[in-house]
């Protein structure tokens, strides 16, 4: 398998009891590509992501990350393998500052022989944080402020900045701007563009058609647990209306006709 393929899934399936939340998803993305996943609520978008990131255990199917077959038993393992997820609900500790949150659970430490009482290397973590923020062009007035004192947009930026700080091999964002205002959304979109320029692969789950058409190379549409369209919006002439057609079920690509 080519090194250029970042993520590949084959027949990825998840059943919750009798509910077929995800059925036979075949997916592939190349290095540097930004892919959006769209679909109605309950179409299987989040289920798809949860199988990849090890939050849930799949019923069937295979996943390859950079050509290597993977089967994560938990989100931590996926993260260690280089998949960084920005969740809908922000996983940030409000009373800690920015570097603390970025490095939570994977602190840079010294004197490791002290076990749980090993010391934190604050200086190195602050330095890496500033570099990560610079890379993503995230602006935060004072990184030593606690998260509690930050706006929703700033919080989301902190969550996203984690990906840049840890040189993630694949970033997944689950509706990163759903709860944000106009300006904050623009800020997050700018960060996504920065990631694109840096060649960092990204999977973006979003309901925002304008955002998706603006930002990504390709749209994967889910409907009733199955992929029903794979739209290369950069090279083909596809309008927002077409995409809506796929989402609602008015249209289906011929190669996915069994999904209809």
């Amino acid at each position, binding site marked *: 398998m080519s090194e250029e393929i970042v993520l590949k899934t084959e027949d990825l399936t998840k059943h919750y009891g009798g509910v077929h939340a995800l059925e036979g998803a075949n997916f592939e993305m190349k290095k540097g590509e930004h892919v959006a996943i769209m679909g109605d609520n309950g179409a299987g978008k989040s289920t798809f992501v949860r199988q990849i990131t090890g939050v849930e255990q799949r019923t069937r199917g295979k996943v390859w990350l950079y050509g290597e077959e993977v089967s994560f038993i938990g*989100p931590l393992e996926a993260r260690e393998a280089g998949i960084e997820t920005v969740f809908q609900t922000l996983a940030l500790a409000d009373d*800690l500052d920015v570097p603390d949150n970025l490095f*939570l659970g994977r602190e840079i430490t010294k004197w490791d022989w002290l076990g*749980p009482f090993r010391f934190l290397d604050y200086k190195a973590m602050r330095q890496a944080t500033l570099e990560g923020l610079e890379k993503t062009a995230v602006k935060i007035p*004072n990184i030593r402020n606690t998260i*509690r004192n930050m*706006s929703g947009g700033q919080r989301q930026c902190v969550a996203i900045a984690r990906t840049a700080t840890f040189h993630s091999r694949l970033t997944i964002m689950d509706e990163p701007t759903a709860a944000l205002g106009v300006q904050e959304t623009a800020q997050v979109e700018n960060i996504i563009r920065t990631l694109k320029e840096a060649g960092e692969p990204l999977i973006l789950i979003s309901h925002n058609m304008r955002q998706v058409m603006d930002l990504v190379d390709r749209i994967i549409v889910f409907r009733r647990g199955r992929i029903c369209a794979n739209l290369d919006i950069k090279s083909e002439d596809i309008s927002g209306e077409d995409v809506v057609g796929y989402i609602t079920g008015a249209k289906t690509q011929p190669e996915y006709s069994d999904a209809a």
Partner: protein
Amino acid sequence: MTDTSHGTGGLAFDTTKRSWPNEMNILLALIIIVVIFEILGQVLPYMDNQSFLFDTRGRFDTIFNEARLQIIILQVAIIGIIALGVTQVIITAGIDLSSGPLVAATAMIAMSFAQTELVNGNPNPKAIFGAWAMDLPVIVPVIIGLMFGAMIGAINGTFVAYFRIPPFIATLGMFLICRGIALWWSAGRPVSFPTESYKFLGSGMMPVFWFLSLAAIFHIILRYTVYGKHTYAIGSNEEAARMSGINVRKHKVMVYMIASMLAAFAGIVLSAKASTAQAGMGEFYELFAIAMAVIGGISLTGGRGSIIGTVLGAMVLGVIRSGFTFVKLDGSYQLMAMGGIIIAAVILDQYRQRNRA
């Protein structure tokens, strides 16, 4: 008011300043309280222009009234040791009510292994065990006491972390169990006549030495180690901590164990200071320890608080207690006033938090 950020404005992100520490407010309160008692000493007609903390009568040839300073800190040192552990538990959004009775139980158990064989040439009338447990080196009762504390803490932590019992209930149960153990051990009779080396642990200013050394150690641990960071993270957002790969359950058990070991050590020091151990020891200690942490600016919802804050909180409590005695306020009024002050501290803190948000 403690916020140095300036919103999302055009500030560059290279500012890495730390904001005004919460502890400064408590230090300020401490100074204000001292000033109030100084003024009361001058103003109250029956006080005869006495100074609260300064040596104005040339009794000791020093600037400060050293005797009073020593009493203030000695009074709070032993409960302060408990408060260091309680602080860590509360930072994880928990609570530990079992520490007071644990002090009594540990005091009795530890001292049983610290007895001398002969008292004034006669066999020890309070002997718990036979000759095999007499005149043991001081390290033996200390280790037994600490191990007992660790066991109680492990049980507390296991119930909280693994069986998901609310910390208030789990440690309330342990509160009764420990008091029961203290009464059951030697059937409620005091354990007395410890060895000289055991007595030394609590003699003179030793309790203060233990309190301040342990405070320094745990200040460093909470602030600069992974253990400390994870303690704050769990109290701040347990879900986020779990998703970040922190073993939340294991960590909580460790926190409760450390807290109970500190309470057990307080029991050892208390019994050494008193040269006797009684089942009724440590009454209300758990509440005063919590009060110290609360006055020190801890948040009962977790995530916020510090050892420095708790030490200052202990000092505030000590100064108030000593000050009330200084102005000849009766003990019953002292309790009422202290209760009011604790509530006022929490109200003030909530007000401060609201203004900050």
